């Protein structure tokens, strides 16, 4: 149980959960869950690009996520196709093109399942360095963005009138989201990444009175899900990434019950 591969998996899952939780709060507050899913799904295309170009897949993912974010920003200005349709097109196109591109790659067979659902038990020291470095950079960026991003999230015009540089703040947020998706890919895979962003945040909502409390609560829920999911995976030999998401979902369901009891009229 204290074998090196498991400790590495634990460190990776905890690191990703702690970074994803506060960022996921903004995804929830800004109602960008589907946007996050689009970035994540199209990350498969980034992986294929990374392999084809011989660079680290994390770089490929970050690049594709940034490209998708820019495409969405540009195309949102037209009105004939709704945002949800646009995101749906990009998500599935990115996934499909990524799958096709991966099939062209020669050499040792690509483990597609690892990309789609994560392979945290196979995390290497190199992966850990990526997760640690990317995670710290993301948290630092988020700390710097925190107040202006909250102000923009609440009311863009008010923030603008108060002198917040709205566009750079929003771009900064997209960038941190892209990096988070890149580092989370190894743990839960492109299809489940968004769950690490939104489920812990949703779990923390009913216990929080301030945005900061919600971020801390989400981090706690995410960390608990990471540890619990890995333990369960080891115990029952279930896939690690999905197990983490299952535990996160159980915690969310429990928060509904606890919240309902706490709010029930006394006497």
């Amino acid at each position, binding site marked *: 149980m204290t074998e090196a591969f498991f400790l590495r998996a634990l460190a990776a899952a905890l690191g990703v959960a702690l970074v994803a939780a506060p960022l996921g709060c903004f995804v929830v507050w800004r109602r960008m869950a589907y946007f996050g899913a689009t970035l994540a799904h199209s990350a498969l295309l980034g992986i294929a690009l990374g392999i084809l170009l011989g660079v680290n897949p994390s770089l490929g993912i970050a690049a594709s996520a940034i490209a998708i974010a820019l495409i969405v920003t540009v195309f949102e200005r037209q009105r004939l196709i709704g945002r949800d349709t646009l995101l749906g097109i990009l998500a599935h196109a990115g996934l499909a093109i990524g799958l096709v591109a991966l099939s062209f790659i020669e050499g040792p067979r690509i483990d597609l399942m690892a990309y789609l659902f994560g392979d945290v038990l196979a995390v290497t020291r190199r992966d850990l360095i990526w997760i640690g470095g990317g995670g710290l950079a993301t948290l630092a960026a988020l700390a710097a963005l925190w*107040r202006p991003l909250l*102000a923009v999230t609440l*009311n863009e015009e008010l923030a*603008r*009138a*108060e002198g917040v*540089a709205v566009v*750079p703040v929003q771009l900064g947020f997209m960038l941190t989201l892209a990096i988070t998706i890149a580092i989370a890919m190894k743990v839960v895979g492109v299809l489940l990444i968004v769950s690490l962003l939104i489920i812990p945040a949703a779990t923390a*909502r009913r216990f929080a009175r301030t945005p900061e409390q919600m971020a801390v609560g989400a981090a706690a829920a995410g960390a608990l899900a990471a540890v619990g999911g890995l333990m369960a995976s080891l115990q029952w030999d279930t896939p690690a990434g999905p197990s983490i998401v299952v535990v996160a979902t159980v915690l969310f369901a429990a928060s509904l019950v606890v919240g309902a009891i706490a709010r029930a009229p006394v006497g």
Partner: protein
Amino acid sequence: MPDNAAPDNAATEPARATPYAPGTLAAAEGLEVRFGATRVLTQVDLVVEAGEVVTLIGPNGAGKSTLVRAVLGLIAPSAGRVWRRPGLRIGYLPQRMTIDPVLPLTVGRFLALARAGSATKVEAALDQVAAAALAGQSIHELSGGEFQRVLLARALMRDPELLVLDEPVQGVDFSGQIALYDLIGRLRARLGLGVLMVSHDLHVVMAATDRVICLNHHVCCSGAPEVVSRNPEFTALFGQAAARGLAIYSHDHDHEHDLTGAVVRSGQEDGQQRGPQHGQQHGHDHTHGHADGHAHGHAQGHERERNP
């Protein structure tokens, strides 16, 4: 986001030789704003000086909010120009502000978002709008009147030189409206700030207004409330009754209310020297005013019935 959004920082306009008086905070000249093919504003001139209250009135869809948003730099004019004193600190109270309940937020945290490192100013800002008790309250549980007061406190957080208030008393009951306008007038007097305000409440707002601008896509008329009320264009837009109400109220303002709606200074016996309109409104103060708390001499804790 509108396609024609202006540059982000509302306070940075290209510097140029200012043709305005030293006390001028913001101005518009020959302003025209189009939304697509619709011309919302044409040939609008506007000047706001330090220490004066300028009130924009006009029918729905007259372009009042568009004008204040153009003055703030939130939308770019299609013609004409907007000038703001370089480095001008602005406090803004937008017209329709809703806060999504997915975001947990206390009143205190909401105020602290106004500027970096301003957490220590929260208490003072809430004190100014007589809402200090609300600091720890969830912003989602406020009544309409409480919320408008909190929005005003937020606008005060930046030590503004110019307050831009877009219908600041919406959702506030009648006595609360008077109290809020009185507060705005007192802030103007104490802090020397300029106020640009959009209002529908003709007869209430005028007492605290130095200059009225009657807007209907263009400036119909402007001037002191009494002068505007005699202007034929004003009566054409708002009718005789409004003109009378405007004139009557501006001469009948002989006492003040605090924000709970209570009369804080009245020289004479209440009710004796007032017309029926005023007496009615006064009785109203003491019968409800739910939105503005129940602090008629009771303890603070009494103020919020919703709390257990």
